[in-house]
């Protein structure tokens, strides 16, 4: 099903003199893990912030399921089905794990505050949560403080929380950073599960091994510009990409 979920068309963004995005084009298809790679400071996270509405674009357009969301504020884009995780996990660290996860399900149910006050409960998400936790490979005490979980588990839980919100597209920012081999495997499984249930995934990641074997399409960014697009195999052999990453063969 070749349906375009998210399209970024000719987007530019600069902070003062620093150009972080220069006429960037990107398309994310349904049921696809779209890799977004590039050296540090290439503007990957900034692009994610532009898509999720944290920053406003200087020029260009962003389309979500066909309709334009360029000038929508961040919370409206989230409500349309745009999920997001962050480089370092962001939880309400003085609240319990239950409250943090329910922040995700609130996004799915989208009840008004008054409905929620008078006890309107969404569908029971425990079974779904158990299924996802099986993939994530760890359990937790429901009322425990989030800070009691180790870093790796927090990263995984952040993906689970984003998935609980049933987004159409989920933007994942370096989920495997700082994780051991086994946990990285879990991340791939989770993202595969997300794609199987119809979500589109935009994955920023540095561990090439993971990117190469789970991504369906890849866009490469360098200094805010798209320098290559295509299947993982094409990208692996593309001279420009190698040069951008390794700083060129003939350098000393």
């Amino acid at each position, binding site marked *: 099903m070749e349906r375009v979920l998210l399209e970024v068309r000719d987007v530019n963004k600069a902070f003062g003199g620093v150009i972080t995005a220069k006429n960037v084009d990107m398309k994310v298809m349904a049921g696809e893990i779209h890799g977004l790679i590039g050296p540090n400071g290439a503007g990957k996270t900034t692009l994610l912030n532009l898509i*999720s509405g944290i920053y406003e674009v200087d020029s260009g357009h962003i389309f979500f399921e066909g309709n334009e969301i360029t000038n929508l*504020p961040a919370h409206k884009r989230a409500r349309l089905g745009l999920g997001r995780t962050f480089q370092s996990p962001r939880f309400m660290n003085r609240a319990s794990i239950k*409250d943090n996860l329910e922040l995700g399900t609130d996004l799915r149910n989208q009840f008004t505050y008054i409905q929620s*006050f008078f006890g309107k409960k969404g569908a029971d998400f425990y079974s779904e949560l158990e299924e996802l936790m099986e993939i994530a490979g760890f359990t937790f005490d429901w009322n425990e403080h989030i800070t009691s979980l180790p870093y790796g588990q927090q990263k995984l839980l952040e993906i689970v929380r984003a998935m609980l919100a049933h987004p159409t597209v989920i933007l994942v920012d370096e989920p495997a950073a700082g994780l051991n081999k086994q946990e990285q495997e879990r991340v791939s499984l989770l993202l595969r599960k997300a794609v199987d249930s119809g979500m589109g995934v935009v994955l920023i990641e540095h561990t090439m091994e993971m990117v190469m074997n789970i991504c369906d399409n890849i866009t490469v960014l360098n200094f805010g510009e798209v320098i290559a697009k295509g299947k993982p195999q094409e990208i692996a052999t593309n001279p420009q990409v190698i040069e951008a990453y390794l700083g060129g063969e003939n350098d000393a």
Partner: protein
Amino acid sequence: MKKKKILTPKIIGKIIVAIIIIAAFIIIPLPGVVSRYMLKVYNDGLIYFIAALGLSVMLGMGGQVTYSTAGIMGVGAYITAILSTKYGWNTGLAIIVALIAGAIFSFVVGLALFRLKGSYFSFASIGLTNLLVTIFSNWMEMTEGPDGITRIPKLDVGFMKFTDFNSYFRLLFIIAIICYLFVLRLRKTSYGRALASVRDNEITAASFGVNCYMTKVYSFVIAGVFACLAGGLYAVHAGFISPEPFKYDQSAIYLIMIMLGGVDSTFGAFLGASLLTIIPEKMRWLNEYYKLIYGVGVIILMIFMPMGLMGIIDNFKYKMIGKIKKRKQSNAIETEAN
């Protein structure tokens, strides 16, 4: 890992608390149990508690420091006083109108003030309080200026009269319980979670569909309604109001009540409110030194108990559960070992 229903200890805890509350409700207002002046102090304490509850939604759940509690309390008090003395309305009706007016006023002002963030919002709320106090002290035709309004009639709702401190104590007690349950309920709703997410990080909140700006404005409205309710009840209780109790330095007391009680807990607001009304009475012998010790005490409180009394109790509970769990795990390991 499903939500376990821990039956016994929590439920028993709740029953004990309920018994204490009902006992206090019946015994304290009985004549002779407490001196008439102390009863007046307890009533003041309950009124401050209601205002502090409103602030606990904004500060405790939403992380927004505001100095406008006393100012908006003044709005409620003056509307109630003016309607009941100058226009002869029934006091109960006047309080209800004060609530509605307070909600509208807080909404409009909230829209303006929340264009600012962090400390700049807090001290813009100081500007708001000063603006209100200047109006209270200079609009002689309506508010009688610094002389204040005297002889505000007691609450007389047809079938029930609350003329003396004892009956008024019971009314305040019930209203305080209702407000307390409302805020407790609020924490568990999607609004409570949205507000907590705004407190911890607005960007995360936005990416979960929370409209941070409006969420903060709604919390300002809730705090405003509670403050106006407290203001109206205060006017009727004291029978006299002047601009004095609604000034900027009075607003500081509500903030300190929440921090003393414990910022994260609704019960903390009650603890803070009752302590800060009873301690000044009992510390009369300090007289002119009282304020100095009070100021220094606030600094010490922030250094050693940033999460307030309830913070300590929670830590204590948390450590205890930690110990029990460890003991369970250690004997689990022992049983496995042998």
